[in-house]
């Protein structure tokens, strides 16, 4: 149980640390930044499993809600949960969970399984929750909002590869688990 707490805290911190990667804003994304943090979420799902990964994402969100400036660009506080990207943020938890479940279930070898799981969790799931909320909060039409999702696709693919590569590297070495 203690080891799990350590891992959960650590992965929450990894998601937070990925917030140090500068966010990219494109006008056609209507205020949704491209950030590395959603990759941290899928990484958590792949490396520490569905349940712990989801808990790590949740701990991260609670920390943000408490006012710690851990979101990309140094934001934090309750306001991000009333803002346009609130749906993506809430979606971090199921995204990690589903990534973990898929990765655990697929028998394709580490790289492919992680790639697929991270794409589904980190792109499909996040957008399924994030896009409707975006449309709702900003009074966009669903059509425009779906345009945003399309704009996020290239980043989503790149980040899925990132997760897959890291999973592959770590699978190749015994990272000190006794």
């Amino acid at each position: 149980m203690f080891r799990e707490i350590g891992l959960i805290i650590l992965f929450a911190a990894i998601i937070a640390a990925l917030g140090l990667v500068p966010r990219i804003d494109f006008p056609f994304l209507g205020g949704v930044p491209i950030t590395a943090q959603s990759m941290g979420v899928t990484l958590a799902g792949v490396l520490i499993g569905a349940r712990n990964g989801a808990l790590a994402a949740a701990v991260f969100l609670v920390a943000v809600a408490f006012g710690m400036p851990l979101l990309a660009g140094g934001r934090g506080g309750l306001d991000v949960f009333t803002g346009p990207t609130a749906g993506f943020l809430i979606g971090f938890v199921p995204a990690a969970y589903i990534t973990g479940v898929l990765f655990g279930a697929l028998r394709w070898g580490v790289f492919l399984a992680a790639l697929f799981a991270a794409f589904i969790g980190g792109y499909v799931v996040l957008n399924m929750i994030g896009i409707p909320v975006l449309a709702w909060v900003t009074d966009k039409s669903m059509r425009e909002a779906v345009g945003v999702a399309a704009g996020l696709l290239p980043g989503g693919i790149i980040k899925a590869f990132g997760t897959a590569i890291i999973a592959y590297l770590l699978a190749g070495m015994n990272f000190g688990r006794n």
Partner: protein
Amino acid sequence: MDDQSPFVALEGVTLRRSNRTVFQDVSLQIAGRRVGVIGNNGSGKSSLLRLAAGLLMPDAGVVRVMGRPTAEGRPETGFLFQNPDHQILFPTVGEEVAFGLIEKGMDHAAAGVRARELLALHGCAGWEKRAVHELSEGQKQLVCLIAVLAAEPDVLLLDEPFSSLDLPTRYDFKDRLAGINQHILMASHDLDLLSDSGFDRVIWLDGGRVRANAPPESVIPAYRATVTAAGKARTA
């Protein structure tokens, strides 16, 4: 370079580490074969060694190693970190020791063989496949020390090299160091070791200032006396 000209020299050095001024306009010539650095916790011993290794750059002034400013390029030094965890890069003992040799241009196979020899020489025969993080703290420190000595750099910067070593290994290394031809700058709280291992000079740092830079016979008793007096004052 002869033993009289300094192998490490600080000229008007100021060093800040996150808002804390560690050294303020310090000048210091370090000459001799074996030089010790003593001083209380936080007095700047590790910071001095890091400056000499080129791991920290002074905010003002110049640090020279073998005559060359560290700002112009990293000096060829071997650095033993005070905390072994800060030094270790590789999963196995063999890779850890071979690394410095490979960096010096030895080919992988030869480095592996040499690493095995060196390990055996220090009583660690057969350790090459062991996982570094599964060693005891003292064993880790020993592996780090062997790895640093393996590369045979001109200047050895050793930060508390013996703090976790057992008695036999300490004795071993006392002899080893006495026979070494390179320059050694060594920070240590082990005053006995510094007084009876043929050190040429001892530098006493006190809150970032150089209190003394003289042979051990004069510095160590002076430090001891001050410390005992201060200890008495504190308990009083």
